[in-house]
């Protein structure tokens, strides 16, 4: 590890300026639960670590009637400590309570999880099924990108030189909406998903599925928005047959590899099992 500078800007402009100046040689630091380990492991050779926790916008949580705005540096525990967020964004809460450990959850958050952009990220699939959008600030202005389009490969994403994630926004879909996220790990904590599935269901006034979303993790180079499986549910009765069909389609939408955490076949099988389970759980949570 080479010595590096630590900067703690208090404005977005200042942060963007530093990131732009150093390019690849600078990384933003939120909770640091990934970054510090990566620096020590020799993954980055940095000139500067930019602590973004002193920028007000990045610490904001605004839970309005229509949407939730989550600052990029907000740690997980702030979500599950707030009952109103827990009620409207259950998929998010599933992830917030299982990332790392209690200690990790008090530092790490969805912003860092998204920017770290690993295929196994526990935070990204739930954001996708909650229709979240990433709000990005760069030197030449701001832009918003749907979370499902954010990651471009293992550890890479759409952020350009000098760009940083400011917040994540997701709509409050009301009482007819339910969501859930679960990962498969051989143990009961402190592990990385062999495969994981997030799902959400919104019912129309007739009790049919108005909208469904299924997102997969650890089964491809990025978290995957399983669009065909999601579309297959639209307009259907929320029943076992529909869920099973969607689960089967989701299985065909992933492209897992074999590694130390699991085999490709095992992961595909788990996607099918977990998709059905998450759809059932999402449905159970509607109105609950």
């Amino acid at each position, binding site marked *: 590890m080479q010595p590096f500078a630590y900067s703690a800007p208090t404005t977005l402009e200042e942060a963007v300026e530093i990131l732009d100046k150093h390019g690849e040689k600078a990384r933003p630091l939120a909770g640091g639960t990934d970054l510090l380990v990566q620096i020590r492991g020799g993954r980055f050779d940095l000139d500067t670590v930019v602590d973004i926790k002193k920028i007000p916008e990045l610490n904001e949580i605004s839970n309005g009637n229509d949407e939730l705005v989550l600052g990029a540096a907000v740690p997980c525990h702030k979500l599950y400590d707030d009952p109103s967020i827990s009620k409207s964004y259950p998929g998010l809460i599933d992830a917030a309570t299982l990332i790392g450990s209690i200690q990790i959850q008090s530092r790490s958050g969805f912003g860092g999880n998204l920017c770290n952009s690993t295929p196994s990220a526990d935070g990204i699939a739930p954001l996708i099924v909650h229709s979240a959008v990433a709000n990005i600030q760069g030197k030449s202005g701001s832009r918003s990108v749907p979370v499902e389009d954010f990651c471009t490969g293992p550890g890479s994403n759409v952020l350009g030189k000098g760009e940083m994630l400011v917040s994540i926004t997701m709509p409050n879909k009301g009482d007819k909406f339910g969501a859930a996220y679960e990962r498969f790990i*051989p*143990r*009961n904590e*402190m592990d*990385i998903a062999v495969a994981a599935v997030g799902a959400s269901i919104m019912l129309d006034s007739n009790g049919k599925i108005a909208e469904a979303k299924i997102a997969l993790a650890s089964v491809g180079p990025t978290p995957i928005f399983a669009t065909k499986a999601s579309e297959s549910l639209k307009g259907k009765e929320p029943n076992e047959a529909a869920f099973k069909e969607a689960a089967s389609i989701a299985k065909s939408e992933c492209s897992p590899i074999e590694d130390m955490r699991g085999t490709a076949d095992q992961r595909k*099988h788990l996607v099918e*099992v977990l998709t059905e389970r998450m759809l059932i759980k999402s449905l159970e949570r509607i109105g609950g």
Partner: protein
Amino acid sequence: MTINFESKKKYNVIGTNPIRHDGYDKVTGRAIYGADVKLPGLIWGEVLRSPYAHARIKSIDTSKAEKMDGVFAVITSKDIPINKNRSGIDVNLKRDVDNILAYEKVLYKGHPVAAVSAADRNTAKEACKLIEVKYEILEPVKNVDEAIAKNAPILLEDIEADHLGKTVNNTNIAKHFRHELGDANNEFKNSDYILEKEFNLQMVHQGYIEPHNATAHWDENDHLSLWSSTQGMFAVRDLTAGFLDLPISKVTSNYVEIGGGFGGKTKVYLPPVAAILSKKSGHKPVKIIMDRISVFQGSGPAPGGKIIVKIGVTNEGKINSGAVDIKLEAGAYPGSAIPAAAVCCLACYNIPNIRVDAYDVLVNKPKSAAYRAPGSPQVSFAVESVIDEICEKMTWDKIDFRIANASKEGTRKPDGVLYHKIGFIETLEAAKNSDHWNSKIDKKDKNKIYGRGIACGYWHNGGNRSTVDLILQDDGNIALNEGSADIGGTRTSISMQVAETLGMPVESIHPSIPDTDKIGFTATTGGSRTTYATGYAGWEAANKLIEEMKKRVSILWEEPEEEIDFADGNFYSKKSDLKMNIEELATKINPTGGPVTSTASVNLSAAGNGFGIGICDLEIDPHTGKTDVIRYTAVQDVGKAIYPQYAEGQIRGGAVQGIGWALNEEYYIEKDGTMANTSFLDYRMPTALDMPNIDVIMVEVANPLHPFGVRGVGEVPIVPPLAAVGNAIKDATGSRIYSTPMKPRKILEVIDNG
């Protein structure tokens, strides 16, 4: 002299649960561990390790690293004193020294190649990157099958292997030996049912939390002082002195507390490297601490391997023949746990005809080390699975069958050694009568499947050399010095035996573990020998102290020594009503000849064979293969639990490690022979959330070789869980898994195929 060790004496101290002597220091964080050692002028060392599993070192250029600011010294294997005359080195010492710094070849990823000392740790790490090593990459040997294949790459080109007494060159089988009892090959003809199965196991790591570390100061007067996390400070002294060509009296190995070892800290990795760096850095003290990746890649795991078990039974329910072929992965250098594995495999049963063939197999993985009952969990997984399958096939009760075939006093082990008094049958009966065995599995989720397994395990336990010194202080307390590293509360278990003998409270005994210059040789803490052997030395030292105190009492009372009795901490006159306790004597002792001290050393050849049983209930999600142990009971003959809470703690810890080994732990080896999962994130040891409370039933059948009946506790409990879990999986799914770890993918496969 014959001592009747069998009497059921009522004890005052033994069997109680006092606050351990090192408790306050450890819970307050004040205890000094290897990483805490600070010396004036301390600098840091770092080890450069091989990125390849198997390669020839073409050249090492250290010049850039040497020129870096803050760097004091860079060393390679050429700087190790005994390597100056390679032809003169004993072959075992040569293997050991090549493991601490590779000579000409690297044999596993993580094999040390060079080392650097620098002003700070980060500089030392950066300097390692400047060392240029040119390798010729060789094909890696990844497992037993590859090692013994025709035309396999040979790890040790100078090997002279002993295969059943013949010397063999150009082989990866470093040793092959055989045990035979009766005539196993012919006797299978008289078996009514024979079952033969093959089992494969992956390497696993002990997973101690504290990484290996060493601080060394080789001073200008050529005296070397060492501090390192080790189970055996004398082993560190002796091996380091051997590598450095120093007399042992020039090396002082200091005791520091140890944050877990489980057998993995019986090897010596860093102290000699730190020592050479110290000398080359102008006699500055040098500290090295491994990171977790280096611990996984570079320090000894327990061997994986291939085991074939064949057992023959008669229709009457007797095992009449057993044959076991054991091939264990030694890692890069010879010395896997085959000697113990070959005895432990069939040690639970009274079998008239036995053949065991054991092979020590070299593979391009770190040199294996001891891990709790080394060799026994692997072979017991195989044998206890076959026993389970036979019982099911023949519809025999799994405990009754084992009782009918259990080893007892007079049974011969596979190596021909006779058992003295052992408690295996009593342990089986305790399991049979246990609440767990007599209650149904708690099947609380209708979407899950459930199973129960039972399995046994054996470990012979250790004897060897130990020393204890006692000093009666003027205030009536006892200072106790002993040479055993305290891994699991042994300061207290030894002190309790001394306190019991002296009739004093254990709080009056003040134990210390001094350095290797200040106590007689004491063998490494391991093999479950410490409470047994060092405790034995403590008992002897206490008796010697009593004899010496009697002399002093006799002077004070002006009565002949033989007229003085000692009982429960008091001296009595046989002919008058004079009485005095130890505390009172202490205040009057100086005029009688100065301080009273005693010392006792033992070298015990045999120990108290231990047997254990695991009963395991599993809950399995049949759609994901997720497996949870929902109830586990460990039953074990401990001989005598000196300190019951700690004995139970040892049993629980062993059970947890065995369950982890059974379910998810493994060295995941990539195609290039390198270990992929070198972190606690991906080396899946159980967490607290993965374990139920482990129930413990301790059986006490006194070991006749020990004054208090101690057998040794720590190793046995890791043995039964592998097969207990496997047998429970069979019970739940209807199919058996013949390899470890029995992870979710394999469970799904057997459910799909079953």
